[in-house]
């Protein structure tokens, strides 16, 4: 008689055994894990000729900085970019998926993608997951109908705004925008304002930090300024960085290859026969 199936479901399908265990643990007083804070400052604004998006570059895992220089501005279409706050995996996956759908749509229609299309595809997806896909996005782009800027919340609601901020540093950045934004900004003024807003988030919010990324989208053109500003450079005790002056003497050199060198020869495949 075999000792089989302690935790193999009898007939396939979901096994609810662990749910019982979780309930028992909660009853005994264990606190279930809470959501990780979003820890980002992302902003966008509409200027005279188009849209400028900005983001910080810190990715956090609780109290630890997981990535000091990550990319939060995601490509959606040649004329549309999207900043993402929230769970990094969720923002990456959802923007990747919608960018793929937009590309197929472009082939079918033969036209450039519109920002409202990206917006609707994103919000439908997020709503159908009832907020469990934790992605808060700032979507901006310039299409045939002009420049557009939208915010999308994890539950699927959206706003259309002339300037927007999201993430844990959003209040710090919004204070800068509310004080200094005006319509008809030039490109340089717009970039300066966006950089200022992101810096405000970087310096005043724990969840945001490192560098400033900026993306400028105008009609027919886009500029991705990666690490536009680096207000937090690495500093070393000595201004020259580390250098090891005392050199060790080399007495003997012996190199042992740890991996076999494999020669790969290509065999061209034959075409199928009928």
């Amino acid at each position: 008689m075999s000792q089989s199936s302690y935790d193999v479901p009898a007939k396939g399908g979901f096994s609810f055994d662990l749910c019982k265990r979780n309930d028992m643990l909660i009853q005994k007083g264990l606190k279930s894990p809470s959501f990780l804070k979003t820890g980002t400052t992302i902003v966008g604004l509409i200027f005279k000729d188009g849209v400028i998006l900005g983001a910080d570059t810190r990715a956090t895992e609780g109290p630890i900085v997981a990535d000091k220089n990550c990319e939060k501005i995601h490509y959606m279409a040649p004329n549309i970019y999207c900043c993402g706050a929230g769970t990094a995996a969720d923002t990456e996956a959802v923007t990747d998926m919608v960018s793929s759908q937009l590309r197929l749509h472009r082939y079918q229609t033969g036209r450039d993608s519109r920002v409202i299309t990206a917006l609707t595809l994103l919000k439908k997806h997020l709503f159908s997951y009832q907020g469990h896909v934790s992605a808060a996005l700032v979507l901006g782009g310039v299409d045939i109908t002009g420049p557009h800027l939208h915010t999308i919340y994890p539950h699927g609601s959206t706003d259309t705004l002339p300037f927007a901020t999201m993430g844990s540093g959003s209040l710090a950045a919004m204070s800068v925008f509310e004080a200094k934004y005006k319509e008809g900004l030039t490109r340089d003024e717009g970039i300066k304002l966006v950089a200022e807003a992101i810096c405000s988030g970087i310096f005043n919010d724990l969840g945001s930090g490192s560098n400033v990324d900026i993306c400028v989208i105008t009609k027919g053109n886009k500029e991705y300024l990666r690490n536009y500003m680096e207000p937090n450079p690495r500093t070393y005790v000595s201004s020259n960085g580390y250098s090891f002056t005392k050199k060790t003497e080399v007495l003997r050199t012996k190199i042992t290859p740890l991996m076999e060198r494999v020669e790969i020869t290509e065999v061209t495949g034959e075409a199928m026969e009928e």
Partner: protein
Amino acid sequence: MGDSQYSFSLTTFSPSGKLVQIEHALTAVGSGQTSLGIKASNGVVIATEKKLPSILVDEASVQKIQHLTPNIGVVYSGMGPDFRVLVRKSRKQAEQYNRLYKEPIPVTQLVRETATVMQEFTQSGGVRPFGVSLLVAGYDDKGPQLYQVDPSGSYFSWKASAMGKNVSNAKTFLEKRYTEDMELDDAIHTAILTLKEGFEGEISSKNIEIGKIGADKIFRVLTPAEIDDYLAEVE
């Protein structure tokens, strides 16, 4: 795929071991408008006749040569609506590959997946085979490539090939004219001359379509003005 009433395949073997439906599909292809492709040393060109059923049809709205990816294009002979469906499926497959592996799909892979779709329709319930043969032209890391895919789902790599009404004349012409070290522009001239061989009436930029891809790996359909230039050079 297929109504629940028809869970059996409509494509069945004949006593001689042939799949008669596929033979008929090839006949449908053979009565379609001529199309051809030539692989040059530095690119691929595909071309087709664009005979419209009446002078009242707006020829700008008809596009027989389609993009599957930025570096792969396709042309057909046979039934237009079947072609549309295949193009849509192929584009989706190329996009899925790109999402999964984050690299542009190699030409052979896309051809294989399209051929698999065509084969599925010869072995499923309640559906008929596609009435098109495709010529897929692409340029990837392995260089320029030209593939033909038939309604049965079999595919071949060609240096030069033709399909449709005038296939035997066109292939003879291509066999004589083809050289291994042909350049893309020569190939375009040869393609035009081959189309001219069996053309009824006056050949012009309004009743042929040409698509090309060079070492820049960008597939483009030539504009009527560009076709006029090539036609003038050929004269």
